[in-house]
Structure formats: structure tokens, C-alpha cells
């Protein structure tokens, strides 16, 4: 269904149902915003007024406020973002010669009650000593704010949107407005996320990092030219036409930690529904044929997350499909609002659009609800979310086929996550536990997405479905609408495994997380050898009748062979291993080994020798660096060699024929 009267329809629906959901308060709601903003499409600017209600929910008085002014990251080459990124983000560069390409935000006035704070604002740089970075400000308060007190701050701001960069800005008539208003940092209590003393957590805008914020209620009034179609976090309450050919849309979002919106005159709107969740896709007209790819992906994700993590708590979900020239804003997450990405003519067998839609949707949980600190522990959002993305993709579109399935060539989403890590040129480049802007040698992507995802998947393989489901549900129930840290998750794992009578990996899983998070070690086990010798009873020279008699007498009474295999740990990661030992008569033994020593020999007395050995036969350990050396066969497995040699011959013959002149 597509329609241009949808905003109006939504308006009627929203008055009827929305106030009720208001009664259920899901979060602390200590950072609420009432914002009125006008988009000037001529000058690409925003003019806004923001009233912030901020409550001190810690046990300590607060004598200054800290805010993010993210758009200043795009102000000039001196910002920390520009320095770190080399003015490129995800392959898209800044159009440096165009003055319109740069972005900024100014606070023109900041008051609390009768007190004017404007003159007290100063830029701070808590992460580096870049005095030119203007993405964080500090404002001292005349009187400190005691625990439990709420302050109201009245802010006027003007902002200029950049040409789309790092997923925010404009491209022609398309606007993706994210990180656009003065946003208060998180004042953390002592003990929260294991910190020793209370204090502000308000990081600068970095090239490799996302965000961290408190929950609240957002009432946002957006004024745009009349012809624009708008989508936003939250639910549209009403829409009013103004006299000057503009219109104002009133949005409200409860229990969210950010607010983003989009506007374009070209969007085609497609709506759908999953249970009580209204799904709205804002599509480029050319991509209308791919509407279902977006809606079904979101529905699959909603269903999977509800079953395996927790209920989706919001009433709506908006998916934005950016235009070709605005692709730098593709693949980004905000509460109840994501950007996906698709291209005209992409066949259904290539499921990038599904993957990105499911991934960004998943961030509603990992970061949106389980509000970890994306600056400091990127793996808690990107890693967990990639893990869920892999499972959803493989579950709905087929394991080993979910991402690509063309001309007999196919790959699953999880397989590609695994490959992204194991095929790294330098797998030692970085550990997972890193602040996301501190990857001096690179490796942020794999360390935050692939590596934690496959470690989580391996954890689930080791612990079994029941235990790992329980871990995820407990994590969600305990930490939803709060700020968990990595250790909080580990504590839950340790708590849950203790209740599992079949748990076989020691007293807890700390050994696993230490290796996973704090080292760059790799996992590589190999079958070093298989050898068999005939059992000998008497062999050699024996005294007989005054002479020496040479005897070869094989022992045929018990077993014919002493047969053994040696397993070697080549990497520094120590993992408990299962080893499948296969004998020539078809007998199989599954051995278990703690994997700690450098080598392990398994010896047997049998009538038939060992003919093949396979480490980790069920492929539980996904971060194993080299799987080709995980198995060994005493005979050459030549059938596949024939297959590929024949293919190679055929293709080289065809190349020659194509060159025939």
C-alpha cells in the first residue's frame, strides 16, 4: 500500500492509541526533550529551540552539564573526526571545495530559569588534546544539581547540515537529520558500568565510534516545506499546514535515547504491520519494487528478536531508503528509525538489503534498549547485533545460502562473518576490548563486528541452545533501558552456566571471555600425524641352542595395530576440543581434550589402523583460523582434486578458444 494521505491517517490513529502507551513507563526518562525545529531547504540549515528536562539520577551533586554538538565534527579539517577519518567515512569523502559541504552547530542561547548560561559555554576535549575540536561543550551551573533534582535548560540553536557524510546531512533534496541537536551526555553514577567515581561520560565525535545517551521522552515539532515527506523516530501526533507553504509535524517518542528524522519530496511510502508495530518504509521511487524486501526483513527480525531476546517495546518502525547520491547515509540506526540501502536491479539472490535492514533494526535492541556505551565497548552493540543478524539471516534465508545464492555459488551471512575474521591479513591487529577510536593499527571493524559475533556464536555452540537462550533473555530482562557493560554480560553468563548441571567447562566462563576480549591470540589446532605399527610379540635376536636366532613374530592374539594420532595446538588460544577418530573398519571414537597443552597423543590398540581424524567435527569453534589443517586422512582425497582440475582444464581451454583469432 502506498499513499500520500498516510500522514493524515496516522494522525487519526495516533490520537486514539498513543496516549495509552504513555502510561507504561519503560525507562528512567531522565533526559527529555521538547524541540521545535525548522528546516531551511535553501540554505540547508536548521533553526531550533530545545527545552531539555534533565534529572540527576545519581547519588552525587552535579555542578556542570556536558553536551554533544556532533555536527561540529563536519565543520573543518581540524575536528577530531576529520583528522581521524582522513576526511573519508565508509568510502565516501568530503567534497572539500564546496562550502555547502561542511556542517556545524551553534548554540545561540542557553538559559536555565532566569540564569543565562550562554557566556559560560566552553569547548572541552575529554578524549584527545585537540583544542580545535568543538563536538563537546561544558557548562558550569550557578548552583549544583542535587540527586533527584531536575533542571530545565532552554536552548536556541542554529545548525548547518553537511553534504551527507558519516550518515548525516543532505544530498540534493534528501535530508537525513541525525545527531543534530545539542544532546546531553550521560552523568554516570559511581559503580555504574564499573566506574569508580561518578562523572560525565561525554565523548567527542570520532571517526570510528557511535553514541551513548540516556533515555527520555522526545516531543519534536518539525517544520518543512509542504511538499516534503517526513519520517522520524517516534509516532506522528498531528500535522498542521502553515501559511507560508510549510507544514509542521508533531512527533512524540517515549523511552528512547535519540531522535533522528528524514525529509524528501520524492519518497514513496509503503506501510505494513507486525502485531502492534506499524512499519513504514520511505522508498526511492525506483526502488518501489523492493518494498517487500524491506518490510519482510523487518518482520522477520521482529519475530526473531521477540522469541530469542525480548519483546519490541515501541509502537512503530520507520525504514529509510536513501537515494543513490545519499548512500553515505545508508545503514544507520536510531531508535524506531533506521536507514537501509538498496540499488535498482539488484536480484533477490543477493540479500544485502535484507542484511542491512535486519542489522540496523537489531540496533533497536543492542544500544537502543540495551543501551551500552558504543564509544567504549563497540562489541556490545555491533558484535551482539552482528551475531543476531547472522542468525536471523541464516534462519530465514537458509544457512550457507542467506547472503548470496547465484549460479551455484552461495554463501551464508555467518559464513561471511567468519571469513571476514579468518581471512584477515593480520589477525593480531587488535583486541576487542578497546575504545573505538583507539585502534592505532586499524582493525576496528573486524574487532567490533565479526570477531565478537563469531565468539558469541561459538559460546552458544559450546553451552547449548537452552543455556544460551537463557543467557540472552536474562541479559535483556535485567538490562533493558539501562546501561550495561561487558562485565555485566559476563556475570550473567557465569550465573546462568552455574545453574546448568551439564556445564563442563570449569567453574565459570571467564577463561573464555579473557581470551576473547583481551588478547589478540588466534585459535589454530591441527592434526599433526596419524601412525600405525604392527603389534610385535617377539622381534629380534633370541638365544637358541647356543646361537642367536632372528625372530619376527607378530602378535595376533589381541590386536594387530598400535595406532595413534597427535594433535597440536599451533595458536595461543586454548579451547576445549572434540576430536573424531575414525578407524579403517568404520569404527569412530569421539575424544574430548581440554586443549591446553601444546600436544596431545591418542593411542589405541585395534585390529584396524586409524585412517582419518577430524578436530571439532561439528564446527562449533567458528574462530578457528585454518580449518583445512583440522583434519587429516591417511589416503589422498583425490575425487575433489579431479573435480577442480577438470574445471580448471575446461576453463583454460575456453579462455584459449575465446582468444582464438
Amino acid at each position, binding site marked *: 500500500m502506498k499513499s500520500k494521505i498516510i500522514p493524515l491517517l496516522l494522525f487519526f490513529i495516533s490520537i486514539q492509541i498513543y496516549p495509552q502507551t504513555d502510561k507504561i513507563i519503560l525507562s528512567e526518562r531522565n533526559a527529555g526533550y521538547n524541540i521545535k525545529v525548522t528546516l531551511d531547504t535553501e540554505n540547508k540549515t536548521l533553526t531550533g529551540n530545545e527545552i531539555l528536562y534533565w534529572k540527576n539520577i545519581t547519588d552525587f551533586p552535579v555542578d556542570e552539564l556536558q553536551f554533544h554538538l556532533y555536527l561540529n565534527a563536519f565543520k573543518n579539517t581540524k575536528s577530531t573526526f576529520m583528522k581521524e577519518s582522513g576526511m573519508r567515512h565508509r568510502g565516501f569523502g568530503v567534497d572539500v571545495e564546496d562550502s555547502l559541504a561542511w556542517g556545524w552547530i551553534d548554540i545561540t542561547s542557553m538559559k536555565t530559569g532566569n540564569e543565562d548560561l550562554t557566556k559560560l559555554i566552553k569547548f572541552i576535549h575529554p578524549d584527545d588534546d585537540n583544542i580545535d575540536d568543538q563536538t563537546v561543550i561544558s557548562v558550569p551551573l550557578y548552583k549544583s544539581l542535587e540527586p533527584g533534582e531536575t533542571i530545565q535548560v532552554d536552548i536556541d540553536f542554529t545548525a548547518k547540515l553537511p553534504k551527507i557524510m558519516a550518515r548525516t546531512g543532505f544530498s540534493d533534496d534528501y535530508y537525513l537529520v541525525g545527531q543534530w541537536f545539542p544532546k546531553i551526555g550521560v552523568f554516570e553514577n559511581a559503580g555504574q558500568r564499573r566506574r569508580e567515581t561518578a562523572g560525565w561520560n561525554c565523548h567527542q565525535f570520532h571517526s570510528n565510534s557511535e553514541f551513548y545517551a540516556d533515555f527520555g521522552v522526545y516531543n519534536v515539532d518539525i517544520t518543512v516545506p509542504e511538499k516534503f515527506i517526513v519520517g522520524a523516530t517516534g509516532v506522528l501526533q498531528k500535522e498542521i499546514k502553515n501559511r507560508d507553504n510549510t507544514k509542521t509535524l508533531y512527533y512524540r517518542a517515549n523511552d528512547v535515547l535519540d531522535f533522528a528524522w528524514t525529509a524528501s519530496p520524492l519518497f514513496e511510502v509503503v506501510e505494513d504491520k507486525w502485531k502492534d508495530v506499524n512499519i513504514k518504509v520511505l522508498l526511492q521511487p525506483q526502488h518501489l519494487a523492493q518494498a517487500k524486501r524491506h518490510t519482510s526483513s523487518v518482520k522477520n527480525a521482529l519475530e526473531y528478536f521477540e522469541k530469542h531476546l525480548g519483546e519490541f517495546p515501541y509502537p512503530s518502525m520507520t525504514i529509510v531508503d536513501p537515494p543513490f547520491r545519499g548512500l553515505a547515509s545508508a545503514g544507520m540506526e536510531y531508535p524506531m528509525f533506521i536507514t537501509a540501502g538498496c540499488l535498482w536491479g539488484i536480484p533477490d539472490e543477493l540479500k544485502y538489503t535484507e542484511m542491512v535492514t535486519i542489522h540496523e533494526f537489531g540496533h533497536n535492541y543492542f544500544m537502543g534498549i540495551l543501551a551500552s556505551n558504543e564509544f567504549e565497548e563497540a562489541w556490545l552493540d555491533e558484535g551482539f547485533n552482528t551475531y543476531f543478524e547472522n542468525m536471523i539471516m541464516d534462519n530465514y534465508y537458509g544457512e550457507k545460502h542467506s547472503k548470496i545464492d547465484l549460479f551455484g555459488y552461495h554463501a551464508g551471512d555467518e559464513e561471511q562473518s*567468519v571469513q571476514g575474521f579468518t581471512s584477515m591479513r593480520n589477525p593480531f591487529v587488535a583486541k576487542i576490548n578497546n575504545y573505538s577510536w583507539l585502534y592505532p593499527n586499524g582493525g576496528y571493524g573486524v574487532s567490533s563486528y565479526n570477531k565478537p559475533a563469531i565468539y558469541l556464536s561459538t559460546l552458544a555452540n559450546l553451552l547449548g541452545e537452552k543455556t544460551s537462550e537463557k543467557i540472552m533473555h536474562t541479559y535483556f530482562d535485567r538490562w533493558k533501558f539501562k546501561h550495561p557493560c561487558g562485565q555485566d554480560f559476563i556475570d550473567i553468563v557465569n550465573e546462568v552456566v552455574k545453574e546448568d548441571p551439564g556445564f563442563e567447562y570449569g567453574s565459570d566462563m571467564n577463561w573464555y571471555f579473557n581470551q576473547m576480549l583481551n588478547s589478540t591470540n588466534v585459535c589454530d589446532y591441527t592434526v599433526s600425524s596419524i601412525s600405525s605399527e604392527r603389534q610385535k610379540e617377539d622381534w629380534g635376536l633370541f638365544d637358541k641352542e647356543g646361537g642367536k636366532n632372528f625372530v619376527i613374530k607378530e602378535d595376533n592374539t589381541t590386536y594387530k595395530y598400535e595406532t595413534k594420532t597427535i594433535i597440536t595446538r599451533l595458536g595461543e588460544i586454548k579451547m576445549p576440543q572434540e576430536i573424531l577418530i575414525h578407524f579403517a573398519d568404520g569404527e569412530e571414537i569421539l575424544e574430548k581434550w581440554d586443549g591446553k597443552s601444546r600436544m596431545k597423543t591418542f593411542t589405541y590398540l585395534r585390529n584396524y589402523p586409524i585412517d582419518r581424524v*577430524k578436530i571439532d567435527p561439528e564446527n562449533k569453534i567458528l574462530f578457528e583460523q585454518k580449518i583445512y589443517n583440522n583434519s587429516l586422512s591417511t589416503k589422498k582425497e583425490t575425487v575433489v582434486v579431479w573435480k577442480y582440475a577438470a574445471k580448471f*582444464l575446461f576453463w583454460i581451454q575456453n579462455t584459449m578458444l575465446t582468444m*582464438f583469432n
Partner: protein
Amino acid sequence: MLISFIEGFRISLRSKKMITIIYLSILIFGLLAAIPFFGSAKTNFANSLLINDLLKDFDYRAYSDLTHNFKEAIAPFISIIQWFGVGYLFFSLFLSAGILGTFIKNENEYQLKTFLRFSGKYFGRFAKLFLYTFILQLISFAVLTIPFALIITSLVDTVQSESTLVYISLVYIQIFVAVFYLFSLLADYTKIILVKENSNQVLKSMWSSVKFIYRNLKSILLYILTFWFPVSIMLLYLLIEDVIGMTSGFTIVLMIIFQQVFVWFRVLGKVWILASEVSFYDRKSITLLTEKEDEELDEFEDTVTETV
């Protein structure tokens, strides 16, 4: 045109022996690369059970593990394909000289000895012709690429959607293919003229060929359809591979036989096209060059030959 195709097909069917010899040359070249490939794969992978994951079906994990960990072992074989392609290009000039010699001078009577004599006789001229055509192709591709690049770069900055870019690219790809085909037609008829007239003047024959093609443009453009012969035979192959699969010792042997039959048929295709071109030329050729052109081209040829 159709008559020439049928006539060409008849001729090529009579030339089974020649086709088989050409096929064997391709097989021998192929084996020169495939046997070391087999040996290398056997020593590197064959003791791992992982490769068995690639038997029943493609397996991304096994495939990426092997290609990543044996990058160095695999790389030479990728470059072998490229070098053999280029090497065979020159060898094929030798073969087409033999084929055309047999068709034109030996009245389709194939004898290895005469085949080789024709090969030796015309190879030099054919090589020169290849060089000229290659240069002309490069120039025309460059000329075509410039407006294409300009259009694309200007559109990327203004166009709202990507489908326009895709359509423009498709149109250009078609133009490129058509131009490429025109040049190979030009080369084919030049070869025929060179053999027929036993001429040593490559450029002059090229010009005659241009005139011949221009005069018979409508029928000759039908030849572009022959592009579909190798394409459809490959599609048919992929279909058969999909149906049979290479999932067991038996189906692998079966597919190896199929593969080689396909290669034989592709050789037949090459010979067929050349034979029908000869037959078409026979039916349509009249004096191609005016006397004036003849003289001018002689002079031009001399200067070019000196510089080359």
C-alpha cells in the same frame, strides 16, 4: 547468407579430422597447465578432509579457507590462464592460416602436411594483420570510452537514481561488443583475401575487406548473431553441469567427457564460421578496389611496412 552458413556447416562437418587436430592442440596446451594444477592441489589439499566439503556442493567456508591459506600456491595458476590465453592467441593465427589455406587453396582437402605449409606461409601476414586490428581496436575503444566516461561522471553528480547509469552502461557495453565484432569480421575477411589473392599487402587487403563488408553490410551484420553460438553453448554447459553435478567419481568422469565434447564443438563453431565466411566471400566477391585505390594503397603499404 543462410546459404553460406549451411555450406560452411557442410564443409566443417567434412573437416572433422582438422577440427580434432585443433582440439588436440587445445587439449595439450590445457593439460600443460592442468597437470601441475592437479599435482599442486593433491600435495596441498588432498590430505585434508575439508576438500570433501566441496564435493557435494559449493561450500563457502571450505572454499575461502583453502583459497586464503594457499594463496601463494594458487596464484601461479591464475597467471597461467592469462599467459596461455595470450600465447594461444598467436598460436591460433597459425591455425587459422592452416584452416583458410585448406579451405581456399586445397579445396577443403585436409592434409596435415599442407595444413602446416599454409600455416607457415600466412602466419607472418596474419600476425601483422592482428597487430593492425589490435591497434585499431585500442584506438576505437579509447575513442568510445571518453564520451562514456564523460557522460557517467557528469551524471553521477546530478542523476537522482542509479538505473539511468545502469542503462547507459548497458548501451555502451553493447556498442563495445558490436565494435569488437566488426573488427573481428574485418580481420576474418582480410585473412580470406590475403589467402585468396596470395597478397603480401596486409593494409590493402584490409581496405578491400572494409569495402566488401560495407557492400554486404546487411547480410554480414547477421554474423553478429554468431556471438550467441559460444554463449549459448556455454549456457547449455552450465545447465548440464547443474543437472548432472560433479558430486561423485562417476559424475565427475561424465562431466569431464562432456567438457571435452563441448570444447570440440566450440572448435567446430570456429571452423564453421570461417568456412561460411569463405563461402560467402566466394559468392559475393567482385573486383573490390578501383585502379586508383590500388596504386595509392600500394604506396601507403610500403611506407607503413618500412616504419613497422
